[in-house]
């Protein structure tokens, strides 16, 4: 318990959907979010004639598949009471490593291996600092975020890596079946794996227990630090996979690749109903949140809204989705009193 565990104490001050009426709310969070997704879908199809097109919708999935794959691992990490702000920087470093390997003449299988290995190594480094040295993950990953991306800047400066082999393009541009891209199918598969991991295994139960009460988890014989280390490894691995997909899709690497994605990934996780204080959340919620964010950005894009203005919507979405249940609870409590 070297990390000062003040959060559980604050959790008593900030009851986070743990009471019985709130549990019902949590149960309906995914349903509510699904309703929002449907509304956005309808609004989009009314607002733009180009929206309801199989290929356009397929393109829209690229807005969120890579981020969502990281978001699943991040969800587990946040449920366990930690956070990783270095994910986008891991993408940059993994992409740089792959770009460097291309210059050395490495083929596609080697590139994928290098991308995943870089992600794992970065995750292991974060995990070592947080789980072994017991440092607070927020600051550690702010540090490793500038470290990882900083290494990319040292290697690349203002240059870019390109000339990826032709068959490497499949991961970001290939289609498995009709309009279903490789990325989208991978996204579904990853969602399934993480859903089983979190909701159907002992490991998943451990993640919840650690997030709710790390001390109790430790006294129950759960290897808290080992679970946290594995979670950072997983997050690193998923960032590596996202790096492979994104690099393949863009066909080039710059050190500023995926800038600011950590925010969008965290937003996706929180929007999906995962408690930022840890201990609660589902994979289904994150899946729906991924669709919601993808639909919002794609719809706004069709309406020619610039990216930076979209980020206002994402920021508002983040704050409003957290604030609404709190306000609703206040109103209900007030009407009861």
């Amino acid at each position, binding site marked *: 318990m*070297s990390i000062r565990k003040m959060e559980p104490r604050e959790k008593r001050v900030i009851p986070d959907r743990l009471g019985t009426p709130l549990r019902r709310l949590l149960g309906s969070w995914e349903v509510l979010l699904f309703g929002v997704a449907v509304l956005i879908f309808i609004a989009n199809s009314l607002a733009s004639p180009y929206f309801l097109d199989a290929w356009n919708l397929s393109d829209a999935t690229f807005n969120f598949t890579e981020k969502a794959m990281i978001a699943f691992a991040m969800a587990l990490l946040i449920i366990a009471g930690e956070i990783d702000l270095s994910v986008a920087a891991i993408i940059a470093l993994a992409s740089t490593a792959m770009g460097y390997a291309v210059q050395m003449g490495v083929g596609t299988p080697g590139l994928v291996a290098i991308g995943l290995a870089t992600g794992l190594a970065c995750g292991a480094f974060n995990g070592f*600092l947080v789980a072994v040295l017991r440092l607070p993950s927020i600051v550690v990953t*702010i*540090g490793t975020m500038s470290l990882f991306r900083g290494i990319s800047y040292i290697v690349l400066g203002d240059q870019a890596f390109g000339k990826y082999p032709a068959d490497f393009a499949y991961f970001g541009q290939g289609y498995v079946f009709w309009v279903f891209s490789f990325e989208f199918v991978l996204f579904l598969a990853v969602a399934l794996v993480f859903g089983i991991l979190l909701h159907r295994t002992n490991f998943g139960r451990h993640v919840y227990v650690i997030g709710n009460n790390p001390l109790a988890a430790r006294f129950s014989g759960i290897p808290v630090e080992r679970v946290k280390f594995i979670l950072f490894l997983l997050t690193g691995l998923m960032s590596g996979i996202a790096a492979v997909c994104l690099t393949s899709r863009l066909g080039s690497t710059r050190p500023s690749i995926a800038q600011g994605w950590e925010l969008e990934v965290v937003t996706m996780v929180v929007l999906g109903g995962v408690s930022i204080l840890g201990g609660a959340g589902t994979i289904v919620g994150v899946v729906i949140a991924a669709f919601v964010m993808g639909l919002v950005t794609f719809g706004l894009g069709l309406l020619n809204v610039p990216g930076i203005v979209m980020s206002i919507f994402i*920021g508002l979405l983040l*704050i409003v989705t957290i604030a609404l249940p709190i306000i609703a609870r206040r109103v209900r409590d007030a009407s009861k009193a």
Partner: protein
Amino acid sequence: MRNLLKNRELLLGLIIVGMILGFSTRADNFASPGNLANIFNDTSILIILALGQMVVVLTKSIDLSVAANLAFTGMAVAMLDAAYPGLPLALLVVLAIGIGAMLGAINGLLVWILQIPPIVVTLGTLTIYRGMTFVLSGGAWVNAHQMQPDFLGIPRMLVLGLPILSWVAIVVVILVGFILTRTPFGRSTYAAGGNPVAAAYAGIDVGRARFLAFVLSGALAGLSGYLWVSRYAVAYVDIAIGFELDSVAANVIGGVSIAGGIGTVIGTVLGALFLGVIKNALPVIGISPFAQMAISGIVIVLAVVFNARAERRKGRIILRDRAPASEVSA
């Protein structure tokens, strides 16, 4: 404990002096008073931002929106200055502080009234404020020729050998030092971060302390907005992007505990100067400026490791001491 903190600041001071001496073997005039004053002036804005960040961090919160706040406020005053050349500079500075404080108050209210975790609030407002900067300016730049001479010139004016920009930083250092050590609000920030529950029992409104800390941080970010635009003589959407991390880094290096309740003004100032010296030394010792990001990353990680060791020496609950041992056997 006080001794330990003092030692730490002394140590950091010695490291900075050592670095300056080391760099001056590579470049003769690095340690010259003129160059040191230059480094201080270069670091002034970081010092101001870091002090605002420090007050927030003391209350066990974090303000990631400071750089976006700086960009928005800087853009707002630059546009006002360009559109209404007649506005007196004093009014613009007051406006900058006011707009900044207002943006900070939004963060503070969300944290205080709705009790949303500060990191989530400020991650959200970071993108919102930056996006608002774009909406405000339409993506356009405000360039040097559109700004008035006094808008650009006054921070550069030399008073007693130092530019006014440096003097502003010195005044802010003294002011924040005074607030933290000599006012009820200042003491309540330490209490609110050190032990929120005990603070509440002692009659301290923890939420209010956090709110005021965010307002102060916002006000200082607003002031930095004007200073930044004036110093670099340009305002655009992406100014100071990522600078919030530098302000956190300065705190972490300066020994401010990210868990709240621990930290001194001197430590934070030294933390900022540490980064400033490195930044100014890189070209001197022939390292690519692209390396700066990685170096600050390494420094942050090392500083966190160092802080954790320093904090761990404090009194601990015996049970917690034993806990890791039981975990090894598990």
